[in-house]
C-alpha cells in the first residue's frame, strides 16, 4: 500500500483539487455536511445541507507513471432527501444529509446509506453503458408504433452508449426515529446497520424497511430528568456483535448485542475523570463527544470533544491511552465561544489507512494531523490562497498570547465562521478530503 508507511509529518501534503463555488457568497444549500470515502477509496461522497449527494470518482492512474496524481471528478449527483414538514409540531424536517456510509461492494453497482434527521435511504449507484435498440412496438424515442404498420419482427439488441451513472433509492427506512438521527453505521456482517438519534439506537436489516429493533434507549420516563444524550455510534469493524456510542457527558459505552436484546447495560464504560485544574463553567459542554471512530484494526477507538482528540484502547476503560490537544489556545476563550455558539460545534475525526495518523478539523479553515507513531502534530490550512496545483501546504501556527512571531496568527484573528467539521482519509493512500463551509479540498501526498 503506497504511502501509508510514512507518518503524517514525513508526508508533505500538496493541494490537489478544490470542488465547489469559488465566490464567497455561500448558498446555504451548498454547505457540506458530510464527507466519506468508499471502501476502496475510488469513490468520494459528499452530502450537503440541500439534501444532495455528490459522488466523485478517482480517475484510474496512468499505469506508465505509477506516481502520477489521480484526480477526483464528478461521477454522480442526486437529490437524496427533500425537506418535509411536520404539521403537528409546525416544524420543518431538514433535508440536510447528516451522514453517508458506503456498503462494501458486492457486484457492479455501488450502494450507500444516506440519512437526514429522520429518514435513512439506501441508494444504488449503477453504470449503464448499453442501451436496447430495435423494439418492435416502440419507436426509438419511446412513442408507440401503430400496430397495423408492423409487418416484420426483429430482436432488440443492446448497443453501446455513453456512460450514464444512475442513482436510485432502493430502500427507505422511515418512521423509526423520534429524535434527530446523528449516526449510521454498517455492520461487518454486511446485513445490518444501526442508526442513532439523541436518545435511541435502532438496528436494521438492510432488506427490511418496515421494522427495526431498538437496541439502546436512554430516554428517561420523565423528560425533566433528561441530562444526557447520545452523540455518535459506530459498529466495531470486525466484531458484528459489538458497537459503541458516545454521550454528551463525555462517556463512551461499548455494548455487546449478545448480552441482551436491549443493550441498556453497557459491557464497558470508557470515561476519564475530569482534570480539576481545568474546571470551568463550560467543563461539561466541552467534554461532550462529537465523534467516535474505531481504528481500522478494531483495537482502538478515537473520540473528539471540543478541545481534544483521545485514543482509547478497548481494553482499558479508565483513561485514554493518548490525548492530543487540537486547539488548546481556545481554552481561555470559552466564554466568547459560548456566546457565539461555536462551543456547540461538532467536529469529526478520522484515521489514516494504517491507524498511525489521525486528523480532525478546527477553525479558520485549519485542520490538524496528529501522528501517533512519531508523537508529532501539524496544523494545515485549506484555503484558496494555497490552491496552486501541487502547492505544498505550509504548517500554520497560532499564537496564544504574548509576542506573535512572524508567520503566526493570533487567536483573535481566527475566523470562527470558517470551520472544518468534516474530513475523510482515503482507506489506502495518503489522500485526504477536507470540507470547508461549501468547498471540498482534496490534498495528496507530495510525490517527487
Amino acid at each position, binding site marked *: 500500500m503506497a504511502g501509508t508507511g510514512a507518518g503524517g509529518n514525513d508526508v508533505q501534503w500538496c493541494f490537489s483539487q478544490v470542488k465547489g463555488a469559488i465566490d*464567497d457568497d455561500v448558498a*446555504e444549500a451548498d454547505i457540506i455536511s458530510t464527507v466519506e470515502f468508499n471502501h476502496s477509496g475510488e469513490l468520494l461522497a459528499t452530502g450537503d445541507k440541500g439534501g444532495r449527494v455528490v459522488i466523485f470518482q478517482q480517475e484510474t492512474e496512468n499505469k506508465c507513471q505509477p506516481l502520477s496524481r489521480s484526480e477526483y471528478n464528478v461521477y454522480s449527483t442526486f437529490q437524496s432527501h427533500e425537506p*418535509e414538514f411536520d404539521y403537528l*409540531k409546525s*416544524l420543518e*424536517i431538514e433535508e440536510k444529509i447528516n451522514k453517508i456510509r458506503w456498503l462494501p461492494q458486492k*457486484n457492479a*453497482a455501488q450502494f450507500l446509506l444516506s440519512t437526514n434527521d*429522520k429518514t435513512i435511504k439506501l441508494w444504488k449507484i*449503477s453504470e*449503464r453503458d*448499453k442501451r*436496447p435498440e430495435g423494439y418492435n412496438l416502440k419507436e426509438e424515442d419511446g412513442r408507440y408504433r401503430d400496430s397495423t404498420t408492423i409487418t416484420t419482427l426483429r430482436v432488440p*439488441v*443492446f*448497443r*453501446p452508449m455513453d456512460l450514464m451513472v444512475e442513482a*436510485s*433509492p432502493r430502500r*427507505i*427506512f422511515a*418512521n423509526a*426515529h423520534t*429524535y*434527530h438521527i446523528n449516526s449510521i453505521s454498517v455492520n461487518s456482517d454486511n446485513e445490518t446497520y444501526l442508526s442513532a438519534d*439523541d436518545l435511541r439506537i435502532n438496528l436494521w436489516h438492510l*432488506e*427490511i*424497511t*418496515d*421494522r427495526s429493533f431498538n437496541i439502546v434507549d436512554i430516554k428517561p420516563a*420523565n*423528560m*425533566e430528568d433528561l*441530562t*444526557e*444524550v447520545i452523540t455518535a455510534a459506530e459498529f466495531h469493524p470486525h466484531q458484528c456483535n459489538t458497537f459503541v456510542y458516545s454521550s*454528551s457527558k463525555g462517556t463512551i459505552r461499548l455494548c455487546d448485542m449478545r448480552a441482551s436484546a436491549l443493550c441498556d447495560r453497557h459491557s464497558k464504560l470508557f470515561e476519564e475523570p475530569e482534570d480539576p485544574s481545568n474546571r470551568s*463553567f463550560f467543563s*461539561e459542554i466541552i467534554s461532550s463527544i462529537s465523534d467516535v471512530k474505531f481504528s481500522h484494526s478494531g483495537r482502538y477507538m478515537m473520540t473528539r470533544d471540543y478541545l481534544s482528540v483521545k485514543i482509547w484502547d478497548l481494553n482499558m476503560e479508565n483513561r485514554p491511552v493518548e490525548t492530543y490537544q487540537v486547539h488548546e489556545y481556545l481554552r481561555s*476563550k*470559552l*466564554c*466568547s465561544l*459560548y*456566546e457565539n*455558539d*461555536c462551543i*456547540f460545534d461538532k467536529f469529526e475525526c478520522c484515521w489514516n489507512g494504517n491507524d498511525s495518523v489521525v486528523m480532525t478539523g478546527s477553525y479558520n479553515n485549519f485542520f490538524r494531523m496528529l501522528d501517533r507513531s512519531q508523537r508529532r502534530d501539524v496544523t494545515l490550512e485549506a*484555503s484558496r490562497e494555497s490552491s496552486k496545483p501541487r502547492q505544498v501546504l505550509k504548517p500554520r501556527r497560532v*499564537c496564544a498570547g504574548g*509576542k506573535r512571531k*512572524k508567520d503566526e*496568527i*493570533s487567536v*483573535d*484573528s481566527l*475566523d*470562527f*465562521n470558517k470551520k472544518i467539521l468534516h474530513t475523510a482519509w482515503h482507506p489506502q493512500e495518503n489522500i485526504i478530503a477536507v470540507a470547508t463551509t461549501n468547498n471540498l479540498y482534496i490534498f495528496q501526498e507530495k510525490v517527487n
Partner: protein
Amino acid sequence: MRRNSAVRASMCRLDVESAVKEVGQSIGDVLSSPRYVLGRGVKRKLVDCEDPVPDLPYPLQRQLVMDLCLDKLQSCHRRSEPSLHRSVLLANTLRQLQQEMRQEGGGLSPTLAAACPAHAAPATPRHTPDLPPVPSDCVLAEEALPSLTSCHDLIFGSFEITNSTSYLTDLAPDDIFDDIDTSMYDPSDFSVLAFPSLRVGSGAPSTNGEEGLKTFSSCSPSSALQHRLSDLNDLDQIMEILVRS
C-alpha cells in the same frame, strides 16, 4: 443563516485578553491578506466596552454565564435548527450553577426568577409571575426553581419528530419498477421482486411484513437466489452476443 463575513470571537468579558496591541502589528506581514483585514488595527469589540476586566468577581462571572444560558434556552424555539443536544447541555450548565448558588446560600437574580413565565403557561401552582425584584433569600430561590424545571418538559418535549408526515413522503413503490430496463442486470432487483412484501415503502401493514419475513426465511433464499443468479449469467452471455452483433 449566519452571514459569511468573518466572525471573530467577540471578546466575552470573562475571557483572557490576548494583547490587543498585536492587532496593529498585523499590517504588512505575511498574513495580511484581505481575509484578515479585520485584524488590521480594527479595534476589537472588547476595547469599545467599558473596562475589559478579566478578573470579574466569581459570582458576577457566574451570573453572566447564567444569563447567557437562560437567554439561549429561551431562544431555543426560535432557532432554525433546534437541537436537543444543545438544550440538554445548557440545562445541565444552568442546573449546575443553580446548585452551586444554592450551596453558597446566595439569592437568585431576577433574571432567573423570571426564567420562563412564558413557557410555563400551564402554570404550576407555585409559579408566581409577580416576583419582587432583587430577591436575596433562599426561599424565593426554591420557589423559582420548580418553574424552571417544569420548562424542561416544554423545552425537551418539542424535539420529537412525529410521524404525521409519513403519508406525504412514502416513496411510491411503483415508481422504482417503472423502468423495466434496469431490472435486467441486477440480482438484488430480482430478490426484491420475488418477495414483494419486502419492497420499499414503509407503509406495509404488519401482517404483510410478517408474511414477507416468513417467506424470506422459509424459502431458503440462497438457493433461490443462486438459481436466479445463474439465470442472469446466461442472460448476460446472451446480451453479450447481441451487443457484439
